[in-house]
C-alpha cells in the first residue's frame, strides 16, 4: 500500500442558498486583478443550467478529462503526440465569450457629468479592452433559472432526459432548481497535471492540493483543456495559468479557506482522507456507473490498525492521522455514504463530494400530508428533479447510487419529524431506517453534523507541519525572516 493524505471537501447542497458569498470572498482575495477579472475559482451554478463556462460538462466540445482506450487511460484531448501537434494551437479552448467578457461601468460619468436636463448614465466598458461593450453574458447569466429556455434547456444533463422528464422539469408549478457551488476538485488523477507540457502543475505530497507553479508555467494552456471541470484559467496579463489553491496559505496558518470560512449556509465541510495511491489507475478504469463506488472504496479507514501501521510507514504523521479520524468528510463519504463526487465519469477522481439536494419531495397534490415510509419509493419517483438527472450529475448515470443516498436522507428527515414535529410514528421512523440501512444513532449523527456544528467540527484542517519541512533544510529563524507569499520575479510578460 502507498498511503497518502488528501484534503477533501463536502458541499451539502440541501443547505446552499445560492448567495454567492463564497464566490465574492474568493474573488476579493485572489482574482481581483488585471488578467484575472474573468476568473471565478469558486462559482455557484444553478442546476439545471449550463454553468460557467457555458456547457462545461460537454466533453465532446471541450475534450476534458480521461477516456478508456482499450486497457489504457488516456486524456480525451489526445496523447503526448497529439498534444505536441497542437501545442501552438489548442483547438478546444473555451473562448472569452464562453466564460463572459468581464465588464465594469464608467462611474466617473455619473459623478462628473455637467448639470443638464438628463440623468447621466454610466456606460458598460470591457475590463479587457477598455472599450464600450454590449453585455451579453456574465459569470452567473443563468442564475436562478434566468434565461432558462436557452440555458437550462440546453444543460447537457437535461438534454439526455426523455421528453416527458423534461416537461416535468419545466412544468410551471413544478419548476425546480438547486445551486451547485464549484471549486477545483483537487483530483487524485488530475487531468490538468497530466496535460501540462511544462510540468508546471503538481499535486502536493503532504495534502494533495493541486497547484500551478507560476515560475514554470509557460502558458501552453493545455491544462485548460485537460480539466473537465474547467477550473484552471489562463491569466492573460501574466500569460500563465492559475487555479484555486484551496487557500493553502490560510490553511497553513490553521484558517479555513476563504470560501469555506465565509459560507453563510455553512454547507462546506473540509477534512483529510487517507487513500491508497497504488489503486488510482485501477479505480479510474472502472465502468462509468461503478466509479462513484470505486472512489469510496479507495478511501481507507483511519481507525483500522493495519491502515495506521501502513500510514506510519508511508510517513504520515500522527497528527495527520488524528485529523483523518476527526474528518467530517470521511463520515459523509464513507461512514454514512451520503456524499457523491461530481461527474465521476470524467475519471479524474475528484475529491470534492456533494450531498445531493433533497428538495421538496412531497408532491404538490398531497398538500404536505404524510408521505411515509410505506410509499418511500413513490416519494422518490415523485421527486421534482428526475433521479436520472441527478444520477448523471453525481454517479455517472448509476441511479441506484443516488437512490441509496436519498433513502438515507429521507430516513433522517422522517426520524427528525417524528422527534420534532411528532406527526410520524416511531414505527415509521424505524422502517425508514431499515430501508436506508442506518441506525438511530447514525441518523442522529447525520442530523447533528448537518444542522448543529461548530466551525471546528465542520472544518478540520490537518496540521500541515511546515515547521518540520522547513527545519529539514533551512534554519527556521532565517526562514521566518525571508518568508513571504507570492513570487520573487515578475513574470516576463507583465503583471
Amino acid at each position, binding site marked *: 500500500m502507498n498511503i497518502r493524505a488528501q484534503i477533501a471537501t463536502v458541499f451539502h447542497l440541501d443547505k446552499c442558498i445560492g448567495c454567492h458569498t463564497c464566490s465574492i470572498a474568493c474573488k476579493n482575495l485572489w482574482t481581483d486583478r488585471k488578467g484575472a477579472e474573468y476568473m471565478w475559482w469558486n462559482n455557484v451554478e444553478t442546476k439545471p443550467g449550463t454553468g460557467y*463556462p*457555458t*456547457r462545461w460538462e460537454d466533453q465532446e466540445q471541450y475534450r476534458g478529462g480521461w477516456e478508456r482506450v482499450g486497457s489504457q487511460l488516456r486524456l480525451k484531448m489526445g496523447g503526448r503526440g497529439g498534444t505536441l501537434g497542437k501545442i501552438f*494551437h489548442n*483547438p478546444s479552448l473555451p*473562448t472569452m465569450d*464562453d466564460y463572459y467578457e468581464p465588464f465594469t461601468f464608467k462611474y466617473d460619468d455619473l459623478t462628473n457629468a455637467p448639470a443638464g436636463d438628463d440623468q447621466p448614465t454610466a456606460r458598460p466598458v470591457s475590463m479587457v479592452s477598455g472599450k464600450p461593450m454590449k453585455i451579453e453574458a456574465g459569470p452567473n447569466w443563468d442564475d436562478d433559472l434566468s434565461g432558462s429556455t*436557452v440555458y437550462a434547456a440546453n444543460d447537457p444533463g437535461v438534454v439526455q432526459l426523455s421528453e416527458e422528464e423534461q416537461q416535468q422539469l419545466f412544468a410551471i408549478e413544478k419548476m425546480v432548481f438547486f445551486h451547485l457551488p464549484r471549486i477545483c476538485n483537487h483530483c487524485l488523477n488530475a487531468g490538468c497535471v497530466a496535460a501540462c507540457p511544462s510540468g508546471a502543475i503538481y499535486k502536493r505530497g503532504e495534502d494533495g492540493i493541486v497547484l500551478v507553479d507560476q515560475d514554470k508555467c509557460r502558458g501552453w494552456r493545455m491544462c485548460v483543456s485537460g480539466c473537465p471541470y474547467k477550473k484552471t484559467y489562463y491569466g492573460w496579463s501574466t500569460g500563465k495559468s492559475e487555479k484555486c489553491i484551496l487557500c493553502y496559505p490560510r490553511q497553513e496558518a490553521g484558517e479555513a479557506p476563504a470560501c469555506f470560512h465565509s459560507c453563510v449556509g455553512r454547507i462546506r465541510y473540509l477534512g483529510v482522507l487517507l487513500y491508497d495511491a497504488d489503486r488510482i489507475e485501477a479505480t479510474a478504469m472502472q465502468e462509468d456507473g461503478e466509479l462513484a463506488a470505486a472512489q469510496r472504496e479507495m478511501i481507507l479507514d483511519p481507525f483500522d490498525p493495519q491502515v495506521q501501521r501502513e500510514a506510519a510507514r508511508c510517513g504520515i504523521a500522527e497528527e495527520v492521522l488524528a485529523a483523518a479520524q476527526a474528518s467530517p468528510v470521511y463520515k459523509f463519504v464513507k461512514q454514512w455514504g451520503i456524499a457523491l463526487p461530481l461527474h465521476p465519469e470524467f475519471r479524474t477522481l475528484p475529491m470534492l463530494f456533494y450531498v445531493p439536494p433533497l428538495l421538496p419531495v412531497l408532491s404538490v397534490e398531497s398538500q404536505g400530508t404524510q408521505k411515509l415510509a410505506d410509499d418511500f419509493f413513490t416519494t422518490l419517483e415523485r421527486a421534482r428533479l428526475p433521479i436520472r438527472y441527478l444520477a448523471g450529475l453525481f454517479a455517472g448515470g448509476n441511479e441506484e447510487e443516488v437512490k441509496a443516498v436519498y433513502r438515507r436522507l429521507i430516513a433522517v428527515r422522517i426520524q427528525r419529524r417524528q422527534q420534532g414535529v411528532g406527526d410520524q410514528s416511531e414505527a415509521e421512523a424505524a422502517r425508514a431506517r431499515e430501508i436506508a440501512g442506518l441506525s438511530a444513532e447514525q441518523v442522529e449523527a447525520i442530523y447533528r453534523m448537518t444542522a448543529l456544528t461548530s466551525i471546528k467540527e465542520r472544518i478540520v484542517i490537518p496540521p500541515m507541519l511546515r515547521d518540520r519541512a522547513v527545519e529539514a533544510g533551512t534554519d527556521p529563524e532565517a526562514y521566518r525572516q525571508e518568508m513571504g507569499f507570492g513570487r520573487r520575479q515578475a513574470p516576463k510578460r507583465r503583471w
Partner: protein
Amino acid sequence: MLAMVFWVSAGASVGAADALRGEALFVGTASFANGGAPCLGCHGIAGAGLGKAAGANYGPDLTALFEDFGEEGVMAVLEDLSFPSMEAIYAARPLTEQERDDLSAFFAEVSGQQAAGIGGRLTLDVAIASLAFFALVAMLGWRRLKGVRQPLVERTRKGKVK
C-alpha cells in the same frame, strides 16, 4: 564533381593557371593552403550558376568581376583583399600565388556569361510551399471550437421563430 576535382588536382601541372582548380577553390571543394574561407561563403557567381538562390549574398556577385577590373585589377584585389569585412579573414590567411592565378583564370572564364534567371522559379516554389503550409495549418484548425455560448443562444432563438 569531387572526382573531377581529384582528377584535376592530379592531372593539372602545378604552375599553370587552371580555371577548374580555381572553381574548386571558389566553391570550397578544394581548400586554401592558408586556411581562408572559400569565396562562395559570401559571393555568388550567377553566370556560373553558383549561389543561385541568392544564398551567397553577403558580398556582391562576382560574375562581372573580370570585366570590371581586368586581369591586373583582379590579381591586385586577390593579393591583399583589403575590404573591411574580408580583412578579418584573409589578413592572417593570405592566398598563395598559385591560388590567385587559378581564381583569376576562373573569373576570366565566367566573365561575360549571362546570369541565369533565378527569380521566377524560386518565387513559384516558395509560393507553393507557403500555400501548402497554410493549408495544413488551416486543416488542423478547421475543427477548432468556434465558441459555445453564442451559437447556443442563436440556435435557440432561431428555433423559436418557427
